[in-house]
């Protein structure tokens, strides 16, 4: 089976987010880049399905030149093909992004590569738009499930589960289909040394879609004013345990 996994390059923020002048971009001078944990899981799921069923795993991203790094990371953990929809670095809104991904899937089909499964992250790490997978599915006339944390594929159908109030909702989906997954569906492997070598040399299928314009337009970013708390230091090491215990008791939290 042929599986596509879509990833998006984002800055690996950890501490407080800083913006560059104009407040339209995160200051990434001291940051690395990554993809959403959900998308790492989408790539892992694609690779596992292909290991079990044969076929090929393709990773695709739409983004600036540097996004090739994220494609290579996916090749390093087992994807065979990499497609780069190159942009000039401006942010494409989710409608524009979905349109370009759907076009790329159609172009692959016309060139003889049909996907049985299109895997996405449930939401992008940075914009959290919650819609690209549904829009791609609609554009291609495919069924779609989102929020998936368990997936099994058998005989042209997929069984997909998502968490709902502590339990699970089970979906039965005919393939080909679009599936948006959440972190936890699997535990992604780390890249091996041969994997990294393969990734360095991997061919990237580069395409340049035309930007159709945005209908959802960012005006500016704002760092929310979460005031720091005044922390009370209870002391060093185990000697501080009695102070901690009395706080917990005073909060009425000891049954």
């Amino acid at each position, binding site marked *: 089976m042929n599986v596509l996994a879509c990833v998006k390059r984002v800055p690996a*923020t*950890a501490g*407080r*987010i800083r913006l560059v002048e104009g407040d339209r971009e995160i200051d990434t001078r001291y940051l690395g880049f990554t993809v959403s944990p959900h998308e790492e899981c989408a790539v892992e799921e694609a690779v596992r399905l292909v290991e079990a069923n044969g076929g090929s795993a393709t990773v695709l991203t739409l983004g600036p030149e540097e996004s090739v790094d994220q494609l290579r990371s996916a090749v390093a953990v087992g994807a065979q093909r990499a497609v780069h929809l190159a942009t000039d670095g401006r942010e494409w809104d989710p409608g524009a992004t979905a349109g370009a991904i759907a076009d790329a899937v159609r172009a692959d089909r016309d060139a003889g590569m049909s996907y049985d499964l299109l895997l996405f992250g449930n939401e992008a*790490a940075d*914009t*959290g738009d*919650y*819609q690209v997978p*549904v*829009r791609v*599915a*609609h554009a291609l006339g495919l069924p*779609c*499930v*989102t*929020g998936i944390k368990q997936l099994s594929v058998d005989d042209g159908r997929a069984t997909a*589960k*998502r968490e*709902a109030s*502590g*339990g*699970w*909702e*089970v*979906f*039965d*989906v*005919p393939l080909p289909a679009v599936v948006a997954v*959440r*972190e*936890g569906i699997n*535990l992604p492997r780390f890249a091996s040394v041969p994997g990294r070598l393969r990734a360095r040399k991997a061919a990237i299928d580069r395409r340049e879609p035309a930007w159709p314009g945005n*209908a*959802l*337009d*960012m*005006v*500016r*970013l*704002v*760092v*929310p004013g979460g005031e*720091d*708390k005044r*922390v*009370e*230091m209870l002391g060093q*090491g*185990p*000697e501080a*345990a*009695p102070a*901690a*215990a009395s*706080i*917990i*008791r005073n*909060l009425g*939290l000891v049954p």
Partner: protein
Amino acid sequence: MTVLVFVEHEDGAIAEASLEAATLARRLAGDDVQAVAMGGDHAGETGLGPITLHVADDERLAGGYAPAAWGRAVADVAGRVGAAVVMAPGTDRGNEVAAYVAAFLGQPMAANCTDVRPADPLEVTRVRWGGSLLEEATLRGSPAVITVSPHAVGVERAPGAASVATFRPPLQDDDLRVRVTAKEQPPAGKVSLGEARVVVGGGRGMGGADGFQVLEELAGLLGGAVGCSRAVTSAGWRPHTDQIGQTGARIAPDLYIACGISGAIQHIVGCKAAKRIMTVNTDPEAPILAQSDWAIVGDARAVVAALVAELRSGA
């Protein structure tokens, strides 16, 4: 400007996040608000006030949640009432149904908004990065589709019964390809992370899966649940169901005890609803201290073991 709100309900009781969306809708459009629900008996007070509530009544929808079909039904009402804005709660289903509405109508959608301002084009404030960054944005299109970030808007219940208008949505066969075919109930007896009054969280600083033993003991004593950071799940020390943060669970306990966790923003967005945070960390400069009410500097295993002993001694 007519605003149509998609509301979720359980046996007719409108869900809290949907009432939040309806509250924001009234702030935007005053009385010119209508709502749409999938089935249910909505006689009496709903919290939505005396508005028109369109209720999809169709045996094809009775078999369980069908995302595309629900989206089709909402898009149908939006067209019939000439809605300028379609709103939904920023829940799993709300975001999914809204995405279908936007896709079917070929219109823009902004997920997880905290505010919306009447302007042409429509202006919204929405969360990015799971809540650690906000974005001001405009949506060009009609209807503009927006979902409302849960807990961002205080609910104002509007008194009065809704006038119910049932309708049969123009479903297409493809809309019913995907639906919930079965449900599996949660295991009984286990305190869930989302509902626990006390959560004991462990990070990379616990040093290994065995480091969680003592956290289990503390959580057990307090009737709480154990959580963890992503560094821990990535290392395979704990299952992902324990992960707190942007791509894990959101918690809101009375007390969160964070042990060996540095406090990356992606972790903080998952625990910022905790009423109090107590931290154990070897590093007095760790970012989590700025989010904490109390801190102990030291080795987490040793400190938590002493805390367990202290609580057991029952003084």
